[in-house]
């Protein structure tokens, strides 16, 4: 009885561990397109006129990208903190 409970706990930890790792991977993979989009926006801003309306749209997009990046960063930091804590917990419960 104790053994099967312990096995179930271990399985649950493994599942959480897996989900956590996949989430961190996704967060990290997200940085790459965000980085590229930000660079393309910069390139577009370089080629567009100072008073163009499109410039405003691009600047707004850049703000949006910054916000998305900041959100991911918070999530990443939280995941890393959890990962550290998780490592300290014995999976044997």
């Amino acid at each position, binding site marked *: 009885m104790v053994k099967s409970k312990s096995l179930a706990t271990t399985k649950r930890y493994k599942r959480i561990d897996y989900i956590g790792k996949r989430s961190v*991977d996704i967060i*990290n*993979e*997200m*940085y*790459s*397109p*965000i*980085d*590229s*989009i*930000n*660079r*393309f926006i*910069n*390139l577009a801003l*370089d080629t567009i006129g100072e008073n163009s309306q499109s410039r405003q749209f691009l600047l707004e997009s850049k703000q949006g*990208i910054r916000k998305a*990046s900041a959100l991911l960063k918070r999530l*990443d930091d939280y995941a890393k903190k959890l990962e550290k804590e998780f490592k300290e917990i014995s999976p044997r419960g």
Partner: protein
Amino acid sequence: MDKNKILIANGDRLSQKSLYEMLCRNGYGVDITKSLPEALNRLNEIAYNAVILDTHEAGKEEFLKTVDKVSSKSSIIILTSYGNIEFAVSSIKMGAFDYLVKPVEDEKIISSIERALTSRAAVPVKDISKKTAPQKDQTYHGLVGDSQVMRDIYTIIGRIANSRATVLMCGESGTGKRLIAHALHKSDKKRCGRPFVEISCGGLPREIIESELFGHTKGAFTGAINDRKGRFEMADGGTILLDDIDCLPLDLQVKLLRVLQHKEFERVGDNKTLKVDVRIIASTNQDLEKAIAEKRFREDLYYRLNVISLHMPPLRERKEDIALLAEHFVEIYAKENHKPINGISKDLLDTLTHYSWPGNVRQLENIIERAVILDTDNVIGKEDLPDIIFNGTAGMNNGIKHDIISSLRDVMQEPEKIYILRVLEEVGWNKKKAATKLGVNRTTLYNKLRKYNITSGAEKN
């Protein structure tokens, strides 16, 4: 016109395209490769000033290997989505110039590239040595060299590695006989995981050497307070290197012959016969046939040892390896001394190539170590070399100009003698200090002193 050539390697299409456009706009000449192997091929064809390596979590090991290979050719800037301290440290250790985590501002990338270029530009003509850094096929289990003679040695090692044959290595002091023994041991599939034990037969008195080789039992002699295993027992299953085999006393040569023939021996003070399975490698810098003629070495032992004979050439006979070796040692000692050495000047390489190297690779290693420590501008130049290199070269040239036609060996011996004398003078004729400074053991130094008939003024009187 392009400021500098940059290669963008790896990464997804979006990332590559955005970097390409941004760098082109900033005046760089940019090429893109989709994979790491493709990047390596491109680097072999074109000299890039910097490489931006984009990496993912997967394939980290392959990535680090690429960094290791590429860092000698171009400055590497790593661009990754995975901000991981361990990976950053490994990358920098492998030779990466900078490590940037996405998302990263364009200014930061440009700044990193410019710093990388400045650090390389500091050595305009001088960084040629980086192009000659030892590649995988130019080294063999720690042996460095791309000359035909070294390639032949690698082939022989490969052929005999898995045999049980005893090997006799000859060659001047400092040529790397010990490294050959190591290479043989590491190449031997059966023994590589077992001990590699070495002993210098020249550095110890007769009583100690017997006990060191074969072990002793408690009470076998004064001071034998415990049973002790000898080197042969320690090496059981592995390899033993008997360095300076010519110095082994005659009675112990008989005992060694028995080990060679029957793989058995007794500890000092014991009757119990022990059996071992050891590959024996012997080395010497002396002419063993001459030692046989002088009754200092047993002929039967010589033939037993000389199943496979390997001759390690002196450095002056493989000058094409000097640049590779110098670069190899610079890398080692720059790391060891935490010095950011960018390269070796062309002048220095020319000087090193023209020197006669009486102390062989060991002397080159010592001189490079000294140069790395003394260097102040991150480029090893002629000013970092000791005077002996310049005097030694001149001395040798003068020797060749002599009217009396000497043999090559005589001509080569002259600078060696001059160098030994100079070092002895420097250390006040302290043989121990001189041997350390010359990078040879004391027995070798004594042999050289005998050979060149060198004695101090005090000894003459």
